[in-house]
């Protein structure tokens, strides 16, 4: 999936030159000298990665086999107990399920809307320049700020949505958007879409701009309508970037935390609980560090499996296209 991202990257500023070279061994310097030079150049980066990513992951895996409150000097080895509890933990499965609902809803809503907006902006050209500036604004806000803003927008007493619905004569649709466990997850997903649609819009727009105009002119001469132009010319050329976008959305949704934590803390009654919020509560609020580590490790495994699967899918797709 990275490869396909890189292939599309040209549109977003990573210029490529035809004369690019892969690293090569120059004959005059002995081989071991290269190894030593490389080690020196890699040292700082790998020190940071080792201390703050690799070691912590191993440590989390280890802690998942212990019972520990995080404070007491004794960590009790409990073997697979945490993992057994996790396997039969209704809340964990609910959280995992919620994660996948967010994944599916995000992809199903964000991709089409972002694509439609990108096509509009592309075809509108200069006319829509001001629109583009406003569309981009959500990307400049931190997730915490977005969560806080929408908590207020959804607020039953002082918020914006319910009065707006009433003013439009749709007062019967008014809800306690974040307080009703049946719709809280949907309310949060709406905000996630609001936050990320601009991102995918710009991504698609960059790709659209990169498609040579000769192709469009040729299609126009053949009498293609606007819709045909999109489906027959532009869409086929955007498959790579769409796959990249879907992968980003998938991985991002599985890791989701900030927005949910700010808006609902996983509530009401676990309606918006995700793996990350559940892990945080277990480890840092209930002081069940061993169990929290098991959740964290499970989350890590789920994300890695999904990443490797999409990467493999992306590769086989690339092969089908090439062959």
């Amino acid at each position: 999936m990275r490869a396909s991202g890189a292939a599309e990257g040209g549109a977003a500023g990573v210029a490529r030159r035809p004369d690019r070279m892969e690293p090569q061994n120059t004959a005059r310097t002995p081989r071991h000298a290269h190894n030593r030079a490389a080690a020196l150049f890699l040292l700082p980066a790998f020190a940071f990665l080792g201390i703050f990513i690799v070691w912590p992951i191993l440590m989390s895996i280890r802690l998942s086999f212990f019972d520990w409150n995080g404070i007491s000097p004794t960590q009790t080895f409990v073997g697979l107990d945490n993992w057994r509890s996790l396997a039969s933990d209704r809340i964990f499965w609910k959280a995992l399920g919620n994660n996948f609902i967010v994944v599916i809803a995000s992809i199903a809503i964000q991709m089409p809307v972002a694509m439609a907006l990108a096509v509009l902006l592309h075809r509108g050209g200069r006319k829509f320049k001001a629109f583009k500036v406003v569309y981009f604004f959500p990307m400049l806000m931190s997730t915490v700020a977005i969560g806080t803003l929408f908590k207020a927008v959804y607020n039953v007493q002082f918020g914006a949505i319910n009065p707006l619905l009433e003013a439009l004569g749709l007062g019967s649709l008014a809800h306690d958007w974040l307080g009703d466990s049946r719709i809280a997850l949907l309310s949060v997903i709406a905000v996630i879409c609001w936050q990320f649609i601009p991102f995918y819009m710009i991504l698609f727009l960059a790709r659209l701009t990169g498609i040579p105009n000769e192709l469009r002119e040729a299609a126009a001469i053949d009498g293609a309508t606007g819709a045909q132009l999109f489906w027959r010319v532009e869409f086929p050329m955007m498959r790579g970037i769409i796959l990249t976008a879907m992968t980003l959305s998938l991985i991002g949704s599985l890791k989701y935390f900030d927005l949910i934590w700010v808006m609902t803390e996983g509530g009401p009654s676990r309606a918006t609980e995700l793996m990350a919020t559940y892990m945080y509560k277990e480890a840092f609020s209930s002081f069940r560090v061993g169990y929290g580590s098991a959740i964290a490790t499970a989350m890590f495994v789920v994300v890695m499996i999904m990443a490797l699967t999409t990467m493999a899918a992306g590769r086989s797709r690339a092969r089908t296209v090439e062959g």
Partner: protein
Amino acid sequence: MRKGLHSGLGLVFALAWLAVSGLPFYFMIQSGFKKQFDLLSAPFWTLPKQWAIENYQTVLGGAFLHSLLNSVIVVSVSVLLILAAASMAAFAFARVHFRFNRALFAIVIAGLVIPVHVTLIPVYLLTTRMGLYDTLWALIGPYVAFNLPISVFILTEFMRDIPRELEEAARLDGAGAFSIFWRIALPLSKPGLATVAIYNAVALWNEFVFAYVLTSSPANRTLPLAIWDYQGQYAANIPLIMAVLSLSVLPLILIYIVAQERVTGGMMAGAIKG
């Protein structure tokens, strides 16, 4: 080609999305100038009867500016370290032939998908043990580490594009690896370094989880945590919260207006591969 109904529908859709993306900002900005009971007495879309600046005075008189300064410090130090470590690693991956080049590069790239939560507990324990808990320094290690993969990836792409003739000419003049890195690879990667700097600065400016777990006192909070603290403390005072939010977005909006293309490019180029 695109006339009549087609462009009419398009315009409706464009305007609808303008409302969807713009109205929350409208709500945020003008509510920040209201008094608390104004929200109850008049619908939210009416502009404040009197533009009250008390909310802003309260926020600016509190810990807000200090948090802003904290964010500036943490983000600058982290970005500088990321640029240094990532450009060195990228140089090795792109220009030096060594054993395990591909394998090590793959390991770095795998870092792109790792969820921060799997490291949260150990990093918290490590920070406490090193006596760095509740200091700004606690944030720098994880900030650098988690943003290295994407930065190394982008910079490796850039450094692979440097023509080999330049490198060979320097080598003939007796330049070693370090001087090739410093005199050729780095200057020629300036656009890449700018992209990486913008991408990381925006991401870290908005970072929440590590700052939430590794700091606790108002004196050591970064901007996103200042928002969090305000909303915990003044949950019912929506105008005040909206003033905090407006102030917190202001720096990025200003930078965006001044350098629109740069900011967009930086955020996207990073994220395309992130």
